[in-house]
């Protein structure tokens, strides 16, 4: 168990949905999006999660990060040597325990500057209580300067010097290109104090050059910041080049787990997902 950061045990999740039966009547039906799912996510590694649309991948991420409540089961997260349950906690509490999340659609703050997008993500939230900035103005300013320096260092470490995000630090994040917004969303994770990051399709819809940058950033998270990465990915080239492990999800269950080569070479994966 020491080799794993996340232990998902018999998790179930179902939704109620209306169906029309053969007689044309509306019936309620429980639709199981996740069914008795077990998975161990290795510590300090990159683990890919692949599977078709509707397999339940994003729902699983939502359960891990607290945005969705599981019907039953257990999600245990290892931090400081011991496992603690994440189920039942609110998303912000799960984040504070050390689980970061990047969503499929970036979720950056478009009406805020690039720098503010970084600074709001700082794990140290000094000055965010309403009147602290009025009473402790100088101290708050010191913290703000430190945050800006931290953001600058992250930009430089990840993207070199000069880099486009630093140059556009005072521009609205909404004015960045889609690829740059994805990179900003990923870069922002380094402002937090995370042990595990969940990345939902980080390379979706971006050009090959940006995919390379994103892959480098993900490697940086693991190799330099000792984070564990659990990512949903549809680009098999990225999975083969980047991931240490790969899990295949189908109909709400993990049906294959191993090295990316093994899983992508799996007969069921090739037939049902890759269409080969």
């Amino acid at each position, binding site marked *: 168990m020491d080799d794993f950061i996340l232990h998902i045990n018999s998790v179930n999740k179902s939704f109620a949905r209306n169906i029309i039966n053969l007689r044309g009547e509306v019936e309620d039906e429980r639709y199981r999006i996740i069914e008795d799912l077990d998975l161990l996510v290795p510590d300090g590694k990159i683990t890919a999660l692949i599977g078709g649309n509707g397999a339940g991948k994003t729902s699983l991420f939502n359960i891990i*990060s607290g*945005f969705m409540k599981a019907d039953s089961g257990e999600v245990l997260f290892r931090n400081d040597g011991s496992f603690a349950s994440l189920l039942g906690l*609110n*998303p*912000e509490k799960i*984040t*504070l325990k050390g689980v*970061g*999340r990047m*969503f499929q659609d970036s*979720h*950056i*703050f*478009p*009406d*805020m500057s690039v720098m*503010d997008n970084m*600074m*709001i*993500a700082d*794990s140290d*939230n*000094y*000055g*965010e*209580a*309403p009147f*602290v*900035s*009025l009473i402790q*103005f100088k101290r*708050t300013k010191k*913290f*703000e300067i430190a945050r800006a320096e931290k953001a600058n260092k992250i930009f430089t470490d990840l993207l070199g010097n000069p880099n486009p995000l630093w140059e556009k630090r005072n521009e609205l994040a909404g004015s960045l290109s889609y690829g740059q917004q994805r990179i900003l969303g990923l870069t*922002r994770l380094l402002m*937090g104090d995370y042990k595990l990051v969940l990345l939902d399709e980080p390379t979706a819809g971006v050009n090959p050059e940006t995919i390379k940058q994103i892959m480098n950033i993900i490697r940086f998270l693991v190799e330099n910041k000792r984070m564990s990465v659990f990512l949903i990915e549809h680009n098999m080239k990225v999975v083969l080049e980047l991931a240490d492990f790969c899990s295949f999800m189908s109909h709400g269950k993990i049906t294959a787990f191993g090295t990316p080569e093994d899983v992508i070479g799996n007969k069921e994966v090739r037939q049902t997902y890759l269409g080969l």
Partner: protein
Amino acid sequence: MNYVIHILIIINIYIILTVCTNLLVGLTNLLSLGQAAFYGIGAYLTVLALTVFHLPLIAVILFVIIGTALISLLIAYPSLRLKGDYFILATLGFQLIIYTILYNWVAVTRGPYGIPGIPALKLFGMVDISGLYPFLILSAILALLVVFIFYRLIHSPFGRVLKGIRDDEIAVLSLGRNVTKFKIWTFVISSGFIGIAGMIYATYVTYIDPTSFNLDEAIFILAAVLIGGTGNIRGPVIGAVFVILVPELLRFVGFPDSIAANMRQIVYGLTLVVLMYFRPQGIAGEFKLQ
């Protein structure tokens, strides 16, 4: 000259109202129709502080801010669990409830008869603040103080989180911030400081009744914020000046009194429609209402 000073005092009162409302509407994207109720609560608490407790100026200010903030806290917790249109309806319901209480609790508020002869505020417990010039100075100092405090709040890490909530609540949650807690703070701070506007109004006019704090007034405050623009300090201040000066300018056009009042409503309505089409962020705002 007295007329100009009177207009300046009213502008100062509305600057406080719009700057405070902007924290909710422009920073946190919480469209509230209940801010006139807190304006009224501030006014009635002032009467209580002056006639029952005989407090000096500074104590009245603190009493009104804390009292209004505490009452708003009771409303904030259930209301802020609602989102979007449901939150607007909850604040509308609250506005109507407070108005009904003020109107019908005759034993305390004197209901529709209002409370006349409100005593003057006392500086250091001795010097009466009455007359146009003292009120101009008092209202200007308090408006400047509110503008200063809210400017600092907007440009602080606290304000940054509020802007984050305005842009994308889910992202703020995923960064480990308790969104509900921030919304409650915003509601309570905004409402608490709105109480000051009620205090100035009650002691300046020396008479209050519930009709000064009804739904029309709530819509008027919101219209001022939207016309001026949200998300910064400049917009709400310009909005306050605009909505007070426009009807005064209409006086010089020469409309009969019966038409002038209706013209005021038409001008506000038209301004809002034109702005929503051509400048949704208002005259000087930085945030387009969603």
